C-alpha cells in the first residue's frame, strides 16, 4: 500500500476509472475500491502522514487516531454495502458520485487539519447532490438545489471560520476547541448544519426521500455522521450541545409519527437518533464519547439497513408510502425478515449492536447526573420503537391494506439482499460480542453490557412500547396515516408568508414571517436594484460613452488633487 495515502483518495481516484469499465468488471471495481481503502487504512495503523507546509501553515493530509479509525471502519463498511446494494444501477454518474462522496467523507475523517477537512467537506457536498439529481425528476432537482445551497453554505461558513481561526491562532490544527471566538461559533454552525441540528435539519427530510433508491442509502451513511465526527473532535464536553441534542431527540419524533412516507419517517428518526450522539458529545466524558462513536457506527448499520429495506419496497412497488402498502411479507419475505431484524436493532433489542451502544450514552448521562436529559433520551428511545421499530414492519410489511393490498411483486434482487444480510450480520455480531466491538472504540472502557437488570429494563421498555402501540391501533387512536405533507421548519424557507392566517396566529410565527418577508423583500430589492443598475446595458455595465469616462477621469483627478494638497 502507498505509504501515507489517505484512504479516501483510493475511492475518489478509483471513481475516475469507473467510466472506463462496464458490466462485471465495473461491479468488481466498485466493490474492490472500498476493500482496498479498508486495507490501506488498516495497513497504515495510527499516525500522521503527508505533512505539507502550505502558505506557512501545516497541512496534514492523513491523520489516523482511534477516534477517526472507528468512523473510518464503519464508513468503509457502509460504502461497501451501499455499493453492493446498488450494483444493479446502470447509471455511471451514480456510481461515480457514490465513490467520490464516500471517498471524500473518508478523506474528511482522516483529514489532519482544517483546510484538508474543508476541501473534503465541500467535495462531499458537491458529489452527493448528484445522488439526488439522479432521480431525474423536477422535484428531486429542486430539492437537490436546496440541498446543495445548504451544504455549500456550511462549507462557506466553515471556510470563513477557518480564516478567522488562522487569524486568531495562526494554526490549522483540528482539535478540541473552546466555544467563544467567532471562528469556533462558525465551526459549530457549519458542523451543525451537516449534523442537522434542530432548525437546521430540514435538508435531511427534504432531500433523502427525493434521492434514488440507492442514493438514499448512500446519503444516510455519511454526511450527518461526518458532522458528528467533526463535533466529537472539536467540541467534546460543550454543555450547549447537550441542550441542542435534547431538542434534536424530541423535535423530529412528532413528525416521524405523522409521516406517511416510510423513507421520510426514517429520515426523521435518524435525525432523532443523531440527537443521542450530540448529547453524548456534550457530556464529553470518555464513556460518553465511546458511546458516540459506537452509536454512530451502529446507527449507520441500521439506518442503511432500513433504508435498504424501504428502498427495496420502493424499487419493487414504486412507492414507500404506508397507506399504499400492505402484506408485503408474502411476496418479499426475505426483505421483511431483514426489516424486522433492522427494527430490532434500532429499538436496541438485547443481542443487537444498538443495545450495547445506546446504553453507553444513557449510562454516561446518568453517571454525570443529567437525569432530565436521560429522561428525554428515554422518551426518544420509546418514540423510535414506535415510529420505526413497529411502524416499518407493521405498515410496510405485515398489515393488510385497508383498501386493497398492492399486487404481488418479486423479492428484492440478490445483491440487495446480500447487502442487507451483510449489515444485519454485523449488527448482530457486534451485539453478541460487545467486547470485540468496544475494543475498537477510542477509549478504554470497562462497561458490562449484559447485566440482568439492563436486559430486563430494556425489554420492559420495548414491550410496553409495543403494547401501547398495539393498544393505540386497536382503540383507533393511532393517528391515521394520510398521504400528505407535514409542515416542518422548512416551511419557513419554502412557503413563508403565503398562508399566514391558516397556519397559525401565534405572535412568534407572525414575527418570524414578517422578518422572513422583510428579508425576502430586501433580497428581492437588492436583486432588482442590481439588475436595474448592473444589468445588460444598464448604468454600471455601460461602456459606450468615452466622454462620460473623460468627465469621470477629470473629476477624480480633481479629487486626488484636492486630497493631495491637504488644504
Amino acid at each position, binding site marked *: 500500500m502507498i505509504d501515507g495515502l489517505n484512504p479516501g483518495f483510493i475511492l475518489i481516484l478509483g471513481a475516475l476509472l469507473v467510466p472506463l469499465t462496464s458490466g462485471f468488471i465495473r461491479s468488481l471495481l466498485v466493490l474492490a475500491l472500498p476493500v482496498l481503502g479498508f486495507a490501506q487504512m488498516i495497513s497504515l495503523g495510527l499516525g500522521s502522514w503527508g505533512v505539507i507546509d502550505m502558505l506557512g501553515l501545516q497541512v496534514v493530509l492523513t491523520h489516523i487516531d482511534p477516534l477517526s479509525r472507528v468512523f473510518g471502519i464503519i464508513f468503509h463498511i457502509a460504502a461497501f454495502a451501499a455499493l453492493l446494494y446498488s450494483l444493479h444501477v446502470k447509471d455511471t454518474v451514480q456510481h461515480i458520485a457514490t465513490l467520490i462522496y464516500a471517498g471524500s467523507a473518508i478523506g474528511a475523517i482522516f483529514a489532519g487539519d482544517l483546510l484538508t477537512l474543508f476541501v473534503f467537506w465541500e467535495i462531499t457536498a458537491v458529489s452527493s447532490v448528484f445522488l439526488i439529481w439522479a432521480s431525474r425528476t423536477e422535484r428531486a432537482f429542486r430539492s437537490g438545489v436546496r440541498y446543495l445551497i445548504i451544504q455549500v453554505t456550511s462549507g462557506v461558513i466553515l471556510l470563513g471560520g477557518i480564516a478567522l481561526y488562522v487569524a486568531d491562532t495562526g494554526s490549522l490544527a483540528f482539535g478540541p476547541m473552546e466555544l467563544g471566538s467567532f471562528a469556533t461559533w462558525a465551526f459549530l454552525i457549519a458542523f451543525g448544519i451537516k449534523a442537522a441540528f434542530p432548525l437546521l435539519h430540514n435538508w435531511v427530510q427534504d432531500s433523502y426521500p427525493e434521492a434514488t433508491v440507492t442514493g438514499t442509502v448512500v446519503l444516510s451513511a455519511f454526511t450527518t455522521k461526518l458532522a458528528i465526527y467533526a463535533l466529537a473532535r472539536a467540541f467534546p464536553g460543550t454543555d450547549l450541545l447537550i441542550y441542542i441534542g435534547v431538542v434534536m431527540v424530541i423535535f423530529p419524533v412528532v413528525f416521524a409519527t405523522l409521516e406517511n412516507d416510510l423513507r421520510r419517517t426514517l429520515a426523521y428518526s435518524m435525525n432523532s437518533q443523531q440527537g443521542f450522539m450530540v448529547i453524548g458529545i456534550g457530556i464529553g466524558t470518555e464513556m460518553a464519547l465511546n458511546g458516540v462513536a459506537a452509536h454512530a457506527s451502529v446507527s449507520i448499520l441500521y439506518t442503511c439497513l432500513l433504508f435498504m429495506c424501504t428502498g427495496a419496497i420502493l424499487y419493487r412497488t414504486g412507492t414507500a408510502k404506508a397507506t399504499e402498502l400492505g402484506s408485503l411479507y408474502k411476496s418479499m419475505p426475505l426483505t421483511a425478515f431483514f426489516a424486522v431484524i433492522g427494527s430490532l436493532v434500532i429499538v436496541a433489542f438485547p443481542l443487537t449492536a444498538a443495545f450495547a451502544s445506546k446504553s453507553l450514552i444513557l449510562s454516561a448521562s446518568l453517571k454525570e447526573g443529567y437525569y432530565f436529559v436521560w429522561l428525554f433520551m428515554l422518551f426518544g428511545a420509546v418514540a423510535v420503537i414506535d415510529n420505526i421499530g413497529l411502524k416499518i414492519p407493521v405498515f410496510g410489511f405485515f398489515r*393488510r391494506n385497508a383498501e386493497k393490498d398492492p399486487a404481488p411483486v418479486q423479492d428484492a434482487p440478490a445483491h440487495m439482499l446480500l447487502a442487507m444480510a451483510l449489515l444485519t450480520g454485523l449488527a448482530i455480531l457486534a451485539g453478541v460480542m460487545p467486547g470485540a466491538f468496544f475494543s475498537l472504540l477510542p477509549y478504554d472502557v470497562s462497561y458490562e453490557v449484559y447485566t440482568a437488570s439492563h436486559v430486563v429494563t430494556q425489554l420492559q421498555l420495548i414491550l410496553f412500547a409495543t403494547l401501547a402501540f398495539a393498544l393505540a391501533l386497536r382503540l383507533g387512536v393511532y393517528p391515521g396515516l394520510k398521504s400528505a405533507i407535514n409542515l416542518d421548519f422548512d416551511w419557513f424557507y419554502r412557503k413563508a408568508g403565503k398562508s399566514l392566517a391558516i397556519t397559525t396566529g401565534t405572535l412568534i410565527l407572525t414575527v418570524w414571517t414578517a422578518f422572513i418577508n422583510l428579508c425576502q423583500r430586501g433580497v428581492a430589492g437588492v436583486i432588482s436594484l442590481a439588475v436595474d443598475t448592473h444589468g445588460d446595458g444598464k448604468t454600471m455595465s455601460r461602456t459606450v460613452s468615452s466622454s462620460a469616462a473623460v468627465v469621470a477621469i477629470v473629476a477624480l483627478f480633481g479629487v486626488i488633487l484636492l486630497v493631495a494638497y491637504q488644504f
Partner: protein
Amino acid sequence: MSRNTDKKYWLDQPGATDKVFRVVVLLAILAAIPDILALFDFVYHKHTSTDMEDIPVFYGLYAMISFLALLVVAKTVRPFLTRKEDYYD
C-alpha cells in the same frame, strides 16, 4: 409470484390480529414480572442509578406515558402541520 396467492397465510386468518395482541400483552406482563419480584429482592437484584428507577415497572410505565404524550402532541399539532401532497409544488 402467483405461487404466493394460492398459499394460505396465518395472518390472513380471522382473529389472527387478536392473537397477536394477546401475545403482546402476555410478553409485556412477563417483562414486568421480574420488576415486581425485585420488590421482594427475589430472583435478581436491580441496579439503579436514580430514585425513579425504583418505581416498579418504571420502564414499562414510562414507555406507555411517553407514547401517550407522543400521540397527544402529534394529534394536537397535526391540523397545523398537515398540507396536501402538492403543497410545495
